[in-house]
């Protein structure tokens, strides 16, 4: 299998046995074909914990994604030294509930991390995510700071704008990768949702990606393909993103979106900002790469009653 071959190269490269970076040459097959109509589950309410449980339940339950003994990566956005209300990071309740569901499904390890923009300890603490996760006393759950030794160069064979970049090993090797982005305004890419959240698992000088950002994000997302995307739109930054800071720029939406298709998840979340999916370049580019569906008329959107 292609993926197994790729992972073997990853571990060999990490061990310094091979010098040429692992080659990622997997063409996405599943999504973007008109035959599949992805489910988009939308929950509204203020009890985030039970909303999340329902969203995951509607997508077939966490056991559909996490097999017993799986190594799971839950990737929230913890990019900024901002408080929960300021909305620059994923809501801690969303992260903890996803982590709990993964543990209940029998994961052998649940790793949570992000490569932050501000100082990592400040981001982890002040986002509320680290303190909230510390309350779950389970040895399988780990919230980790980025370890620079774990970045692996990857040759993105089918990349159009980006041919090589380094990725975090844990993200590459995860049996199940759950993307838990926060939806927010972003000055350059207009919005930062799921596809943009991949920025937290890559190494290198990330500022360099901002030229042709949309296309490059799509290329990065061919390598890291989440099994499940949960978009946190409980409160969203509508101006001065991606870090905001002013509570006047934050809008309470009390919405959580769940979807297996990463592009459809972004496409739907875009509409929460009164924008069209085709106005977001990364969504369009990812759709073109066949990473998922961006035409919402071709998705099953289901609203959960709370």
């Amino acid at each position, binding site marked *: 299998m292609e993926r197994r071959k790729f992972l073997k190269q990853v571990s060999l490269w990490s061990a310094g046995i091979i010098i040429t970076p692992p080659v990622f040459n997997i063409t996405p097959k599943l999504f973007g074909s008109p035959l599949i109509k992805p489910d988009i589950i939308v929950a509204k309410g203020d009890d985030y914990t039970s909303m999340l449980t329902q969203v995951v339940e509607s997508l077939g339950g966490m056991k559909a994604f996490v097999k017993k003994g799986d190594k799971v990566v839950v990737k929230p956005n913890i990019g900024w030294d901002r408080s929960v209300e300021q909305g620059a990071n994923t809501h801690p309740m969303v992260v903890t509930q996803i982590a709990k569901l993964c543990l209940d499904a029998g994961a052998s390890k649940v790793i949570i991390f992000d490569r932050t923009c*501000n*100082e990592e300890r400040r981001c982890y603490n002040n986002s509320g995510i680290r303190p909230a996760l510390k309350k779950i006393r389970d040895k399988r759950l780990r919230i980790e700071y980025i370890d620079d030794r774990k970045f692996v160069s990857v040759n993105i064979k089918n990349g159009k704008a980006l041919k090589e970049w380094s990725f975090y090993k844990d993200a590459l090797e995860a049996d199940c990768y759950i993307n838990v982005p926060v939806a927010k305004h972003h000055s350059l890419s207009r919005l930062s949702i799921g596809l943009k959240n991949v920025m937290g698992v890559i190494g290198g000088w990330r*500022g360099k990606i*901002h*030229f042709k950002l949309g296309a490059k994000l799509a290329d990065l997302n061919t390598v890291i393909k989440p099994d499940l995307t949960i978009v946190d739109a409980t409160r969203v930054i509508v101006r001065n993103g*991606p870090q905001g*800071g*002013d509570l006047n720029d934050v809008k309470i939406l009390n919405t959580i979106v769940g979807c297996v298709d990463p592009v459809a998840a972004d496409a739907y979340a875009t509409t929460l900002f009164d924008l069209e999916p085709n106005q977001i370049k990364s969504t369009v580019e990812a759709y073109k790469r066949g990473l998922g569906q961006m035409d919402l008329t071709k998705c099953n959107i289901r609203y959960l009653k709370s």
Partner: protein
Amino acid sequence: MSQLICLVVFLFLFRHTDYTGNDTMPYAVNILFRLDPLVLATITLAQKTFVTLLWPSFIIIGLTLFFGRCFCSWICPLGTLIDGSGHFIKPGKSKFSLPYLKYIILIIVLISSGFGVQLLGFVDPFSLLVRGMVFSIDPIINYLVSLVFDSVYKMGPAALSDYTEPVYEWLKIFVLPFKQSFFYLSFLSFFLLVFIFIMEFFGKRFWCKNLCPLGGLLALISRVSVFKRVPIRSCKNCELCETKCRMDAFDKDHKFEFEECNLCMDCLEFCPDQITSFKFAIQKNNTQININRRQMISAGLIGLALPVLSRTNAISKTADDDLIRPPGALDETLFLASCVRCGECMKVCINNALQPLFFEKSMEGMFTPKLVPRLGYCEFNCTLCTQVCPTGALSRLNVEQKHAFVIGKAYFDTNKCLVYAQKKSCIVCEEHCPTHDKAIKFNEIKTRDIQGNLLVLKQPYVKEELCIGCGICEHICPVPGSSAIRVGSSV
């Protein structure tokens, strides 16, 4: 015993001079400098006011009034380390000594600080020790330990690193710093510190006896102390206490010099007749202070000359645009006079952004902190450096005050900026700008790229009145080499 406890406390506080998940420092990590009466003296002279932060030094003054120079052998962590180094460096037996030097240094430092030149940082034992540890020892240890574990992790078999990694993790939590730090002047600080230990080859506690100005100050205070050793001279037929005394606290006539004694009390043990003892008694000093009038006057003149030299230096007439002081810094002249170069702010800086100056500001600016944004930026919500400054050279700021404190202003180098020079989209600086109304804004402009195609670009600019100079834009700018947006202190 008390020595060991004080050393452990010192090392503990050193390690906790860091962000620990708390926006306020949980411990008084700067206590060593606040206990230092010499800091109190020079800062009071320099600022012409009493800095309340320095009240703990009265504890040491009081202690010295009672027990003499006991600080040197009971508390001083540098003294403890010097004593400890005796196991590795065989202290010389030479009688070469210059006890008046410490008084000369003391006089120079005190007088010049009164005229705005703060030299304490070059000679204060704690400045030398803490700086040496911050700039060199700590980074070296972390580098070496990490090198070992990283090599195992990268090259060793996975089975081995399964055992080493938990050890490494444990060390990282309890012993090692959170991150590898990097400092300018690591060489200089290292050798200044090591030199103190090398001087042990001339004799035990060579630094303390001859050079330490704090020792000198405490010696002067201890002349009126009431806890002293008897007998007041060495016995004629023995002189064991005199020859073995680590402080050489006896003059040519075998008279005991109270102010040179650091109360290590070793002489209690090696006196064959057990006649030495330490007791409370009001005794007249039977010896003169180890400095003569001529030395005193020349020291005073040097102390007066240095500030004049500094004021006639051309550097005082020029502005260094790259010199960005930490938040809370006093007015430059007062800041220079108030900074004792302890290195605490640079140690605590969460992004390793504060670095010591070398000769940018001539001698009198050496080892003072500046922000080097390309290495690290000033974290918007962090106020730690203003909390650890022992002298108030950085005045304490709360988060709101910090958000408003201007340390510099950003400006674009449009010859380098990707948007201006190459017509590429970027605005990473705008994305990172932390002020609540962003100081970096952009215009959408229609332009042509290098091939001549029409395109719409977001062109950034700085709204100067909103910028506080944190430098995250300069830090994060993706242009290689020097940044296309820079923070200047005099913009």
